[in-house]
């Protein structure tokens, strides 16, 4: 019997699900290897089906999300998060720094219809996660590796090296060294293909923290370039603002700023 796969969505932009849909010919191969039982964006809808692998996009932002993720966990053998939202709470975790009671009524005409939690949190904060794939959005290439490895019954192998390694292999010219740009590459996980430095701009850490990330040394360097504490805080408090090491670094600079 073919392994059964579900792709679920929580608070997110749907971009990571597109990593499946953009897989081209491989998508056809995938459809012969697994049975896609739930993947609303692609067609099949059966949210409570029992599956072998559940891919989760999006973060937990409502009470309903909490119930849903518990049910999914019970119904699957392996649970894999895809993307910055599911893995670190996403860009929307910036709300963890704001006061929802205050801004919700400022934006919505009828705030009583809004039922949301005070925070945006990663899936890991609520249920056990078997594998986390970073990226905003994730790379199709890495997604295929994860799926292929799982189908081969091996632990998915994704390198957690720094973007710099990929950048140098691509023969990009370092934007930090030549332009003094506040590049997050040295503390960010590779996998994107070093796209931003490849077009001459600094990495903004959408793939989340690399292994052994020395955020403090990098932040100190940014300061040496002339960036102010609030600029440095913004570098760390962006797409993956809720990732543990970025969050801690931003807090250090936020304390300095006060």
């Amino acid at each position, binding site marked *: 019997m073919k392994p059964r796969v579900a792709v679920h969505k929580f608070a997110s932009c749907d971009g990571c699900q597109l990593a499946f849909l953009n897989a081209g010919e491989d998508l056809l191969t995938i459809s012969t290897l697994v049975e896609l039982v739930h993947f609303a964006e692609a067609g099949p809808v059966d949210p409570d089906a029992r599956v072998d692998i559940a891919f989760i996009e999006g973060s937990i932002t409502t009470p309903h999300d909490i119930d849903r993720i518990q049910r999914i966990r019970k119904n699957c053998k392996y649970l894999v998060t895809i993307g910055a939202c599911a893995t670190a709470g996403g860009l929307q975790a910036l709300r963890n720094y704001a006061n929802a009671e205050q801004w919700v009524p400022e934006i919505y005409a009828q705030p009583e219809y809004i039922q949301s939690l005070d925070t945006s949190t990663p899936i890991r904060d609520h249920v056990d996660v078997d594998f986390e794939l970073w990226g905003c959005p994730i790379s199709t290439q890495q997604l295929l590796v994860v799926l292929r490895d799982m189908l081969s019954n091996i632990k998915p192998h994704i390198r957690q090296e720094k973007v710099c390694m990929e950048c140098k292999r691509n023969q990009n*010219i370092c934007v930090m060294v030549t332009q003094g740009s506040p590049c997050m590459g040295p503390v960010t996980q590779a996998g994107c293909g070093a796209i931003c430095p490849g077009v001459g701009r600094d990495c903004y850490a959408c793939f989340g923290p690399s292994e052994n990330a020395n955020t403090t040394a990098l932040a100190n360097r940014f300061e040496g370039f002339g960036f102010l504490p609030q600029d440095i805080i913004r570098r760390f408090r962006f797409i993956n603002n809720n990732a543990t090491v970025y969050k801690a670094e931003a807090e250090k600079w936020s304390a300095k700023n006060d």
Partner: protein
Amino acid sequence: MTSNVNFLAKAGLQTLIDNLVSLGYECIGPQVRDHAIVYDVITNIADLPVGIIDIQSPGQYRLEQTGDKNYFRWNNGPQAIKPLVFKPEEPIWSCQKSPDGNLRFEKNMISVKKRAVIGVRACDIAALFLQDKHFLHDHNKDEYYRDRRQELLLIAANCTKSAATCFCNSTGDGPRAHYGYDISLTELADGLLVHTLSEQGENVIKELELRTASQEELAEADSLINEAAEQQRSLPSHNLKDMLFSKLKDARWQQIAERCLSCGNCTSVCPTCFCHSENEKPAMNGEVSQHTRQWDSCFSQEHSYIHGITIRSETQYRYRQWLTHKFGSWHDQYGRCGCVGCGRCISWCPVGIDVTEELNAFANGA
């Protein structure tokens, strides 16, 4: 320089390139791209970095247009010859499941072009010779490296100035190229001195408009190269092995680790670093897999991963590995220090960590 040094007018460089092309070489030369000097295909001397100099310091690299008519007054960019012979990433074999269930392995064949590289520095040649020792030793020659290496024609440019980060004088590898090139050039105010060391080199220059260089021209070249040898940085001594291995427990390693990003930029730009990892890229259908190798670094976690444990999980051990290998155990492995004094690891370190400063600090017991 010996007496068979010739003088070529600067415009003659175009003829040199044309000759190379008509002899079937792909001509690779220095050019400005994305704020740095890089080596890439070149057909016209107008694409050379005319008037450009590089201002380098720890963690910083800037180009400046001087407005002069020099083609080779710069020192170096982020890469030497390494990427031309040791590819940053390449498939080496693939493996396919046969219908009978057996695995069939197939080597990845490459076709190699004849290539001429213009503007190679003395330190780049020294680094290439070090890589030769690694990739071409005795029984285990690396075929990919060997095939590309064999087809290289090297046109050296002697350095007539040094960057602040250069210390080739201290490693003994520059600023003048003494070996390993086919043709060498020394750029003077209004011409180039040309010297050859190989038959291929002779063959390339034989149709150029050359005349024997005058004593004054030779003296001008010497004085420029001597000036380039006056450098700001140096190593504490030639062989640092015993010194470094006596400092394995030094507190300084951790102090460096506080500044070091463990990013591997230093090893990636180093023209002698050869570490790589090998990775499997299985096709989605699970029937075929491509085995590739790619540049790795002693600064990455997986570099020291051995079935279940990471030997060097902390940055201090990774930095110690880089320094003790490059400046220490290379002597046992390859009979000399692994550094040629190009200074790249100093300039291209995003946080400006300077190997010469660290080595001198260790040597002075600081």
